[in-house]
């Protein structure tokens, strides 16, 4: 037994990889038994063949057009995936390594090849490829569906506006002619609901426009923003008569912005603060202009926003909890952040025990 253990010939022939020596013409000089076993013949029968004769058609052409030239030019190749063409017509996936032995003057003497079985690895690669193709197909499908969905939202929002305006117009006529108390009350409720609905439709349209058109379109003009912001604050003061809103404005020069959009941004932030902030504490609206930067912030006190909610707060359809609420679709902060983006600015949020503050910061127009 000790003899076999140290028998080099045994080691060579029964190693778990194929060994070959190939002459400068590409003909096999010697191959081990393992190689012959894989092919399905004897080692003596392999001698004299070209190494590429042992390969599948693809491998044969790859070897003659890529690998042999590579061996002659750089002297080696490593870990090349090939397939052995076995006598029984099976294909055995392998990895081949080779180097060219040269004499002192750089002339080629012979080539040594080591060949490893790679059946499992090839299977693994094939599975990876299949999964990759599947994932790519799925992604493309989802993208198509998603685009359709957003188009659908845009069309739906657009088409709902006409019937809704006729309801609003009708309710307005009714409110002028209604005499009795119950009718007056019902008409007023109808008008409020219709207005809320119109607001939600506008939000949906903004959402769809931003998604489909690659961002929200804005028309920026130099504007005295103080009165514009104050107008928004006063609107919300009349909607929330019990609440205190403090303003601190220090705007010394015109701000280059889209007025309706900046009003919408402030209105969304302020409504948000009034709805979610603590009812017995004031809300602060601050705006100032410094070094060309325009900054607008809205802060309220109350419970801090949980971290998990904070991470997704600017995503569309994000609402407190996942319950439908009276507060709309959950697009307010998303639209505000899109308006900020469209002004090359950003909308950020900080929330702790002291306060929750949303800040819009916009660099000067370049």
């Amino acid at each position, binding site marked *: 037994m000790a003899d076999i253990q140290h028998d080099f010939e045994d080691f060579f022939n029964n190693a778990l990889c194929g060994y070959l020596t190939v002459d400068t013409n590409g003909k096999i000089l010697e191959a081990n038994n393992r190689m012959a076993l894989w092919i399905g013949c004897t080692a003596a029968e392999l001698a004299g063949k070209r190494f590429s004769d042992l390969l599948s058609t693809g491998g044969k052409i790859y070897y003659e057009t890529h690998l042999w030239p590579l061996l002659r030019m750089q002297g080696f190749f490593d870990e090349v995936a090939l397939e052995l063409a076995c006598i029984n017509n099976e294909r055995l*996936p392998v990895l081949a390594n080779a180097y060219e032995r040269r004499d002192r003057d750089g002339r080629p003497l012979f080539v040594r090849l080591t060949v490893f079985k790679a059946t499992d690895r090839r299977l693994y690669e094939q599975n990876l490829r299949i999964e990759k193709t599947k994932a790519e197909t799925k992604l493309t499908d989802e993208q198509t569906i998603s685009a359709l969905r957003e188009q659908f939202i845009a069309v739906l929002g657009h088409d709902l506006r006409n019937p809704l305006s006729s309801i609003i117009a009708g309710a307005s006529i009714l409110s002028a002619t209604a005499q009795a108390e119950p009718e007056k009350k019902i008409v007023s409720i109808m008008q409020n609901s219709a207005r809320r609905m119109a607001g939600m439709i506008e939000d949906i349209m903004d959402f769809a426009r931003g998604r489909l058109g690659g961002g929200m379109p804005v028309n920026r003009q130099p504007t005295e923003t103080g009165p514009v912001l104050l107008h928004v604050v006063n609107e919300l003061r009349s909607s929330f008569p019990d609440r205190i809103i403090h303003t601190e404005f220090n705007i010394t020069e015109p701000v280059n912005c889209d007025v309706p959009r900046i009003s919408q941004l402030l209105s969304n932030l302020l409504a948000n603060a009034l709805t979610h902030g603590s009812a017995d504490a004031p809300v602060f609206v601050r705006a100032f202009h410094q070094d060309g930067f325009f900054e607008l912030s809205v802060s309220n006190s109350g419970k801090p926003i949980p971290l998990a909610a904070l991470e997704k707060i600017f995503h569309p359809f994000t609402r407190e909890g996942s319950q439908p609420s009276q507060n709309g679709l959950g697009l307010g902060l998303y639209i505000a952040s899109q308006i900020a983006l469209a002004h090359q600015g950003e909308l950020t949020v900080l929330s702790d025990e002291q306060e929750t503050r949303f800040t819009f910061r916009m660099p000067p127009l370049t």
Partner: protein
Amino acid sequence: MSVLKRNNVVVCGNGSVPMLFAHGFGCDQHMWRLVIPAFEKDYKIILFDHVGAGNSDLKAYDPDKYGSLEGYADDILEIIRELGLQDVIFVGHSVAAMMGIMAARHAPDLFSKLILVGPSPSYINDGNYIGGFEKDQIEELLESLDSNHLGWSMAMAPVIMGNPGRKELGEELANSFCRTDPAIARQFARTTFLSDTRDIISSLQTPSLILQCADDVIAPRVVGEYLHAAMLASKIVFMKATGHCPNLSAPEETIEAIKAFL
């Protein structure tokens, strides 16, 4: 993008008679590096990479144009015209030999001689014609290229080694000689091995030399003999060199045969 940059054209040599070397499927202009020194003294040498190979401009690769060998032949004519060459001695290896024949048919005045190394007008057996491969063997090749299991490690190396901190490792792995974009190599293989240019070879008037290797599985001896019989102005040399790339495996014999013809 100039033609010269697109095809990574390199001009060298001290002579005035132009010799244009075109590489075949699989490598780039480095294929000629053992042959070139023998001609530098007496000729003006022009080397280039086909679009998709070597240092060519990969962005210029147009699957429609290069879906047929004519697209490559057009590039060869563009290079010749751009450099204002006359009486070109064209040396083409493998599939580039057929590109040279196409170019010489379109503009016979620009070429003086063609040297065709391991040429084949069609690789697939068809009736009495022996191309060397059965149709299903070529299909197996194209399938294996589509499933990308050949050269898998070469194609994947940049992804796996795409770690900026280990850049030197990636550089060592990537070979610097036979760089081909895997997707383009796949299409080039399709263009090459499905090509059939048997109907155009008989009308070629340019004097041509066919260098036929022994034991060439890609362009076997019967193919060389077929071409020689079909091309009236051709000579054929049966080389001792084996395989498909005598320009690398037997540069001396290749140089000798070319010089004797010139």
